[in-house]
C-alpha cells in the first residue's frame, strides 16, 4: 500500500528506515501496471530508470541524508509531458514534436532533483496544454479514476488522474486558464497554481507566456506546500520570474484561521452551477465559518468577460509561441519544395484541430486591422479584471468559489462544441488573468448515476484564490478545512 501514502507519510517512514524508496517506487510501478491500461494517465515511463533513481535515494538515506535539506528524497513524482527533463521524451502530447528528447532540465526539474525526488514518467495532457478534458491529446485519452467513462479534466488530466489513482505520490502540471485546478477538482486531489512569476517557466513549453505557471498535484494540502517550496524561487533564466523570497510554506499550516476574511464573488454563484456543487461549496463556506473565518460578499464586475478576454490573449500568445514548430530544428518535418511549403505541410500535419483553431484565432486577433479591436481591447479589459480582484482583496484575505460549475462530464460530451468547452473554465480563468495564486481541494462528492455502481460518486472541488504572493494564506485556509473534513482520505481505486 506504499503507493497510497502522501509525501509527508512517506518521507517520515523513509527517515525512520521503515520502508525503502525502492519498495515505494515498485509499489507505484505495480499500480501503474495494474490500472493504467484503463486510466491511461501515462504516455510513457521507464521502470528501470525509476528503480535506479530509487536505489540512489536509498543509498543517500543510508548514508545519513538530511530530509530537511532534501524534503522529497525518495518520493516518486511524475511530470506533465510539457516539462523538459534531460534525455527524456518531450512531446506536449503532439505529433509535431516527433521523437524529441530534451537536451536540458527545466528549472523545476533541477529543483526537484536537488530535493531528492524520483522523477519518472510522462503524463498525458491536452495537446500543447490547449483543452479542458485531455481529449485533445494526440496520443490517448485519459480517464477519470472515479468513473472511467468520464474525463479527468484538462489540460493536466494525466497529472491529476495519476495522483488520484495512486500511480505516483505527487505530480506537476501547468495552469494557463485552470489546467491544474480544474482537473484537481474533477479528480478529487489538491492542485495549486502559484502567483505568476513565483515558479520559473524555464523548461516549460510555452503556451501563453503571460498566463502560464507550473504547479503541484498532491493528495493533501501539506504536500502541496512542500512541493511549492521546492519548485519556487527566482530564476535568472526566466525574465518574468519574480525575485521575491520563498517562504517556508509548510510552516504556514498552523490550523488557525480565526479572523481570516473570505470573499464570495456574487457574480460566480449563477445559473449553470450544478446544484450538488452549490450545496457542497455552501457547506464548505459554513464549515470555514465554524472554524473562525468570516464571510463577505465581494463583487468582480467584469467576470462575465473573463472567457472572452482569455481566448483572445491566450490564443494570441500561443500563436506566437507555437510559431517555432516549423520542422526546421526539431520535430516531425514534412518536406516541401521551399521553406514556406515545408512550414505549411509540417504544421498542417503535426498540429491537432484544437491547436489549429487557437493558432488561427490568435493570428487573426493580432493581425493588421484587427489588433486594436481585439488584442489591445482584451488587454485593457484584462486590466479591469485584475483591478476587480485587487479591489476585492482590500476587503478580504482570500476569495472562495467552486472550482468548476459541474462535476466531471462524460467523454465526448463537449468535444464537439469548442465554445461550450471554453465556457466550462468560467471560474478558473480570472485567476490567471489577474496573476494571483489559486488552489483547488476536495470539498465533497456528487452522486453519479452509474449503472452497476450504486455507490458511485464524483469529486467536487473548492477553489481558494489569494492575493499576489498570498499562497501562505490560501494554504492555511485549505489545510484547516481539509484536516477537519473527511474528503482527503478517500481514494478512487
Amino acid at each position, binding site marked *: 500500500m506504499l503507493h497510497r501514502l502522501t509525501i509527508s507519510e512517506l518521507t517520515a517512514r523513509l527517515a525512520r528506515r521503515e520502508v525503502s524508496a525502492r519498495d515505494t517506487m515498485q509499489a507505484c510501478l505495480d499500480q501503474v501496471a495494474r490500472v493504467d491500461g484503463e486510466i491511461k494517465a501515462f504516455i510513457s515511463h521507464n521502470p528501470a530508470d525509476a528503480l535506479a533513481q530509487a536505489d540512489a535515494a536509498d543509498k543517500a538515506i543510508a548514508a545519513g541524508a538530511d530530509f530537511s535539506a532534501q524534503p522529497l528524497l525518495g518520493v516518486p513524482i511524475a511530470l506533465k509531458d510539457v516539462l523538459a527533463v534531460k534525455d527524456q521524451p518531450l512531446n506536449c502530447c503532439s505529433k509535431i514534436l516527433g521523437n524529441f528528447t530534451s537536451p536540458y532540465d527545466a528549472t523545476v526539474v533541477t529543483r526537484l532533483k536537488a530535493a531528492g525526488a524520483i522523477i519518472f514518467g510522462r503524463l498525458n495532457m491536452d495537446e500543447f496544454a490547449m483543452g479542458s478534458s485531455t481529449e485533445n491529446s494526440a496520443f490517448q485519452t485519459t480517464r477519470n479514476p472515479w468513473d472511467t467513462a468520464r474525463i479527468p479534466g484538462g489540460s493536466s488530466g494525466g497529472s491529476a488522474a495519476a495522483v488520484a489513482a495512486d500511480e505516483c505520490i505527487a505530480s506537476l502540471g501547468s495552469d494557463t486558464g485552470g489546467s491544474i485546478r480544474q482537473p484537481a477538482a474533477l479528480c478529487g486531489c489538491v492542485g495549486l497554481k502559484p502567483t505568476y512569476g513565483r515558479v520559473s517557466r524555464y523548461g516549460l513549453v510555452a503556451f501563453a507566456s503571460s498566463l502560464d505557471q507550473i504547479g503541484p498535484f498532491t493528495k493533501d494540502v501539506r504536500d502541496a506546500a512542500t512541493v511549492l517550496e521546492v519548485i519556487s524561487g527566482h530564476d535568472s533564466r526566466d525574465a518574468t520570474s519574480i525575485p521575491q523570497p520563498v517562504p517556508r510554506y509548510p510552516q504556514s499550516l498552523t490550523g488557525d484561521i480565526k479572523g481570516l476574511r473570505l470573499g464570495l464573488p456574487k457574480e460566480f454563484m449563477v445559473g449553470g452551477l450544478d446544484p450538488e456543487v452549490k450545496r457542497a461549496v455552501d457547506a464548505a463556506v459554513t464549515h470555514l465559518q465554524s472554524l473562525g473565518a468570516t464571510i463577505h460578499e465581494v463583487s468582480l464586475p467584469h467576470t462575465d468577460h473573463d472567457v472572452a478576454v482569455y481566448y483572445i490573449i491566450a490564443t494570441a500568445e500561443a500563436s506566437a509561441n507555437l510559431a517555432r514548430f516549423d520542422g526546421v530544428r*526539431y520535430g516531425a518535418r514534412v518536406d516541401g519544395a*521551399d521553406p514556406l511549403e515545408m512550414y505549411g505541410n509540417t504544421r498542417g500535419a503535426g498540429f491537432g484541430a484544437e491547436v489549429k483553431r487557437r493558432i*488561427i484565432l490568435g493570428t487573426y486577433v493580432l493581425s493588421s486591422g484587427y489588433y486594436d479591436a481585439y488584442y489591445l*481591447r482584451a488587454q*485593457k479589459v484584462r486590466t479591469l479584471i485584475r483591478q476587480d480582484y485587487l479591489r476585492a482583496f482590500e476587503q478580504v484575505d482570500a476569495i472562495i468559489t467552486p472550482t468548476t460549475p459541474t462535476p466531471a462530464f462524460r467523454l465526448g460530451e463537449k468535444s464537439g462544441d469548442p*465554445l461550450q468547452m471554453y465556457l466550462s473554465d468560467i471560474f478558473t480563468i480570472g485567476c490567471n488573468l489577474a496573476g494571483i495564486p489559486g488552489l483547488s481541494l476536495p470539498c465533497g462528492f456528487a452522486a453519479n448515476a452509474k449503472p452497476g455502481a450504486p455507490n458511485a460518486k464524483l469529486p467536487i472541488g473548492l477553489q481558494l484564490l489569494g492575493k499576489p504572493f498570498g499562497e501562505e494564506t490560501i494554504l492555511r485556509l485549505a489545510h484547516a478545512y481539509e484536516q477537519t473534513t473527511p474528503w482527503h482520505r478517500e481514494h478512487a481505486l
Partner: protein
Amino acid sequence: MSAPDFDIKYVAHLARLKLSPEEESQLGAQLGNILGYIEKLKEVDVTGVEPTAHAFPMVNVFRTDEVRPGLANEDALRNAPKRASGLFVVPKVVE
C-alpha cells in the same frame, strides 16, 4: 453571428498552416461562432484604461554582458530532422 470578414484562407497563410478544404470549412464555422461570442468585449468601456501585458511587469531584467556557456552544438542538433556539418538543413531559401 460571426465576424463579417473572417478570411480563414488568409489567416491560415499568415499562420503558415496548411488546411484541407474540410478543415477550412469546419474551422471557419467554429471560429465564426467563437468570434461572435467575443464580440461582447465591445460592451466594455475601456476609456483611459492601460493595457496589461503582464500581471507583474518586470522591467530592465538584464545581466552583465559577459560570455557564458550555452547549449552545446551537439545538443542543439540532437533532434534535427536533417543536419550537415553542424548545421540544420532546410529546403532552398533563395533562388
